[in-house]
């Protein structure tokens, strides 16, 4: 099967992301990368847990003073829903429905941007209301490194998906770009996996001490 071959829904393979050798290699390589990302985030979580609430004096805000659950809940819902919409996008990709895939990816990106806006608001709020900054304490450094690194992944994921959508807008689906869309959606799911632990370990456990 040539990568540039034109398909119909009937001739489109069942697993288009792995129908070519390049697709298979990308699939394997990307999962290997995600295994490495797991370790990377584990080291950031470990650092955060070790340095949580380590502030130089009582005038510095601790986790339970900073966090507000309604905002975190909203962010969680946005990211969790965007994970489902990217599942929808891949459902249409497997059915060779390019237009619907693009529509669902667009919704995914919109939800991701909503999440990002909340996070930027959150950081600005901590700075103005509590003077909680990257350099204010060990707790601040560990917090912004962990949550900021996740936010950085969100930015990268959004950039990736938007680039794929624009680059392939007039091309339609083929076996060359199907693995690209599939991997971008895996990356997006992984961002949600990390967020589940962030809202649990950082925010929920932070509120109870």
């Amino acid at each position, binding site marked *: 099967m040539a990568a540039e071959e034109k398909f119909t*829904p*009937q*001739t489109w393979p*069942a*697993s288009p992301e*792995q129908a070519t050798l390049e697709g298979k290699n990308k699939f*394997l390589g990307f*999962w*290997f990368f*995600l*295994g*490495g*990302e*797991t*370790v990377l*985030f*584990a*080291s950031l*979580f*470990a*650092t955060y*847990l*070790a340095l949580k609430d380590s502030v130089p004096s009582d005038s510095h805000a601790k986790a339970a003073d900073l966090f507000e*659950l309604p905002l*975190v*809940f909203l962010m*969680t*819902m946005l990211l*969790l829903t965007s*994970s*489902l919409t990217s*599942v*929808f996008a891949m*459902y249409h990709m*497997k*059915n060779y429905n390019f237009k619907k895939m693009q529509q669902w990816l667009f919704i995914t990106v919109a939800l991701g941007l909503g999440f990002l806006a909340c996070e930027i608001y959150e950081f600005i709020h901590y700075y103005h209301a509590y003077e909680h900054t990257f350099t204010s304490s060990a707790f601040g450094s560990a917090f912004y490194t962990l949550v900021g690194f996740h936010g950085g992944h969100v930015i990268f994921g959004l950039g990736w998906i938007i680039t794929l959508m624009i680059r392939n807008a007039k091309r339609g689906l083929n076996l060359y770009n199907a693995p690209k869309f599939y991997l971008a959606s*895996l990356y997006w*799911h*992984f961002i*949600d*996996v990390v967020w*589940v*632990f962030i*809202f*649990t*370990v950082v925010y*929920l*456990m932070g*509120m*109870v*001490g």
Partner: protein
Amino acid sequence: MANLQPNSNNPKVDYEYRRKKSAEEMRMQVVTFTLMIFFTVIAFAAVGAGFSKWFIIPFVLLLAVVQVAFQLYYFMHMSHKGHEAPQLFMWSGVIVAFLTILAFLTIIWW
């Protein structure tokens, strides 16, 4: 219709079988999503209700682990065939992740 198999050498039958299979899977994904939302709401509610932290911490961690398993095995299709290597990679990552967190929590400040 129950004994329809893929690769029946009839392209039309294969196509319809596949459409049906993926529509079924999509319904499962929506159920998974509903459960994930449910777990999230329970976790936030448990903290909001102000139970003892000795209950809340293991409880929300358990919910997080279940939710992540859903995400990996259903949303990211790790339950599908041909995902042996991804399972090896992810589980190796999880073991190292666990050791790292355990080490940092026990060595630092003790």
